[in-house]
């Protein structure tokens, strides 16, 4: 297993703190994504625990793009991954952040 952590600044805070959102399942080729409001001084923090070791740069690239699509602030994103492909990771994050922000950009 490997744990990875990413932080992004410059996101927009949400007008009100939405409830915690969880999507996905910790199953083979899949992952769960939990999104929570958190007082992080404007930072969006993503914490990943993944069964597949050695894919840090790919995670970095995927997360960069996710943040570009969903520039959120004061949000903590926690991921438990069992070797999901980047396509599935991106999909789950989009689902989770869409649900979390309720369609707010």
């Amino acid at each position, binding site marked *: 297993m490997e744990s990875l952590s990413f932080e992004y600044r410059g996101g927009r805070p949400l007008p009100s703190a939405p409830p915690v959102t*969880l999507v996905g*399942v910790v199953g083979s080729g899949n992952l769960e994504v939990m999104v929570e409001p958190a007082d992080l001084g404007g930072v969006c923090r993503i914490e990943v625990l993944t069964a597949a070791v050695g894919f840090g740069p790919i995670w970095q690239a995927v997360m960069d793009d996710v943040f570009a699509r969903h520039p959120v602030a004061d949000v903590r994103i926690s991921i*438990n*991954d*069992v070797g999901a492909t980047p396509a599935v990771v991106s999909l789950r994050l989009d689902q989770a952040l869409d649900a979390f922000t309720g369609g707010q950009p």
Partner: protein
Amino acid sequence: MTDAATHSYYEDSARERLLGLLDPGSFREILPPSERVVSPHLRRLDTPAAFDDGVVVGKATLGGRPVLVAAQEGGFMGGAVGEVHGAKLTGLLERALDERPAGVLLLVESGGVRLHEANAGLIAVSEVMRAVLAVRAAGIPVIVLDGGQFGCFGGMGIVSRLCDAVVMSEEGRLGLSGPEVIETTMGVEEFDSRDRALVWRTVGGKHRYLLGEAAVLVEDDIAAFRAAALALLDHAPDLSLAALEAEHAALGGRLERFGDCRDALDIWARLGIAEPERLPILDTPTFLATVTDKRA
């Protein structure tokens, strides 16, 4: 064709099932994922944990009546029971002793004990067993729903039969040792786990219903599961000596009547069902009409 009027229970995750089953907006989760009560044992074995340890527990209403519910997530380690997972189930059942809801619903989907924490899981299942019986003894029905992709085996297979009633779809499976376990240990001649038709006619919903192991057989539709669960809330638990003697007689009768059968088809034929080989392909309403008065 995917029918807009039905919503597959089999396809859903544990959380989706709860949303579809319970009164809209009524579900309140206890120890939600944000509490991060995860299995410490998985981490030590370099295995990813889930924030809810594979089981969602909480309270809600069903048809306006208060219920406590638990839903196992088969997608996470096959719904297997570990220390935290099992303690959540036990705690929920014990909560019923305090709150006295109209019933407890267990949406089971489990391969049994989680091997990564096998001892803790085994003990936890025995605690769940005792808690189920305590809740029933207190007059609160415990209702099992079994229609997920991973079936219900191992200790949870025993737990299910401790409850007041099992509601199954024909996709559901209920047993003790999974076909793969039997094949691995005893050989493919004993049980060919890849022969899916054999697997389903042995442990699938239709056979369980015919044997009387499942009380209700419904279509793979979450609304059908809901309706069945709702109706069973009025079930009065009976764990008296008389009730268990009746069960003993029934199980003895099953052994006598079917003990020499080698295949579900033999049992179905002996139940007086014409063309038993056709049963697997019948849709649920036709099946139910065909087997009326024929159940063991």
